[in-house]
């Protein structure tokens, strides 16, 4: 168990290091998020109060689109030179390989989100500073849900033809309960009206717990067979 966690961290470090050397996925994802933000400002010509009502929803749409670019790369980057086969043949269990990949994607997506949140606030006149800390907590929870399901599907579709098409078709519908919860909490936090968010929060946590357990358990079948 402990050994498995250590190898997961090892994989995560390896992935992050290769990513930070080229910054390919990170740059693409951040600039994509910014483009979507600009498009949103043109798509909705709303008053300030009205914009607050949909602020959480838009924010999470940006995050999910940006996240797709990152989780997409997660397993595919191991395909050239047959790296994936070597990783699977290595003595580490499949779940720690998977967990490492999830941690790496999670860190990258968190970076994208933390960069785009201030830009989002700036472009749309949204006050995000006051609610930053609770919002960060929410982002950690929901981003974990996005990455763990996304990387699981990335592992699943790694050998599929048309995988760039398949991944969103499979991944986005799956995320709907998580996003409904996260969007509601975000809107409430940005608007600054408390209200009872426990049900939404529970939804996000249950989603995380359930899919973490399921994918860590089932990934063995997918990668090793």
């Amino acid at each position, binding site marked *: 168990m402990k050994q498995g966690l250590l190898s997961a961290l090892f994989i995560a470090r390896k992935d992050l290091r290769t990513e930070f050397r080229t910054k390919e996925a990170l740059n693409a994802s951040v600039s994509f998020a910014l483009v979507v933000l600009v498009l949103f400002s043109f798509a909705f010509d709303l008053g300030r109060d009205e914009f607050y009502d949909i602020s959480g929803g838009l924010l999470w749409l940006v995050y999910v689109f940006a996240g797709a670019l990152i989780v997409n790369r997660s397993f595919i980057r191991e395909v050239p030179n047959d790296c994936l086969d070597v990783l699977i043949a290595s003595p580490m269990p499949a779940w720690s390989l998977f967990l490492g990949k999830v941690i790496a994607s999670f860190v990258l997506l968190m970076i994208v989100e933390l960069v785009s949140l201030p830009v989002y606030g700036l472009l749309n006149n949204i006050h995000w500073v006051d609610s930053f800390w609770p919002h960060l907590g929410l982002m950690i929870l929901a981003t974990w849900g996005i990455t763990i*399901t996304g990387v*699981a599907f990335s592992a*699943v*579709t790694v*050998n*599929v*033809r*048309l*995988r760039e098409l*398949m991944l969103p*078709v*499979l991944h986005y*519908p*799956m995320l*709907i*309960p*998580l996003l*409904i*919860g996260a969007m*509601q909490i975000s809107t409430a936090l940005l608007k600054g009206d408390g209200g009872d968010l426990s*049900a*939404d929060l529970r*939804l996000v946590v*249950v*989603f995380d717990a*359930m*899919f973490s357990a*399921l*994918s860590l358990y*089932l990934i063995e*079948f*997918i990668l090793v*067979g």
Partner: protein
Amino acid sequence: MRDKTIYTLGISGTLLLLYNLHTILMVLPDEAAQGTIGKMLLIHAPAAIAGMTLYFVAVAYSIMFLKTKNFAYDSAAVAVIEVAQVFTLINLVTGSIWGHIIWGIWWTWDARLTRQFMCFMLYLGYLLMRPALNEATQRATISAFVAIFAAADIPLVWLAIRVHDARTQHPGPVLETGTLDPAWRIPFLISWIAFMLIGSALAMVRVRQENARREIDSLRRELHAI
């Protein structure tokens, strides 16, 4: 032998449906508040329940496949899911037509509509993904994985929309609240049974095709080797 089973199931299901149609059209009175269209319930709700039952069966088959690696379970799972999609589609279409008259709208994002729609979309992804996988073992494993994931997601979708259930269009479920008139219970049950019979027949046909497809795959590989 298999042929006979398929025909028996299909024909008995169809006969039951026709008998039920007679009851619905000739015997049952119109629904008090809604008129004739209230009888849509007797096909709309059983279709939804049949679809849900079949999704559960499919997940059971998927789990069995992962456990045993027996391809029969994979064929069964995909066949059952396809038939379940048909029933979910019937549920959505009849519901939409019913809603157009009674609610005045074709569609709304009420809890049950959204859940049915999400089920349809999730398993549509499953069916779209299968042809994109060439190798039989891989296809079966990944399909089972996706089917289990989708099934785990459905209660969460349900929960998520219930949390924000400000826009409920449906009345309370007739079976939970027990307000369904006893005279309607029998046709309701018969509809469900008939759907399950027809569904099993269709699924058996589909299983056969899936097996034939795997045979084609292995023949192609054999040819390639020669």
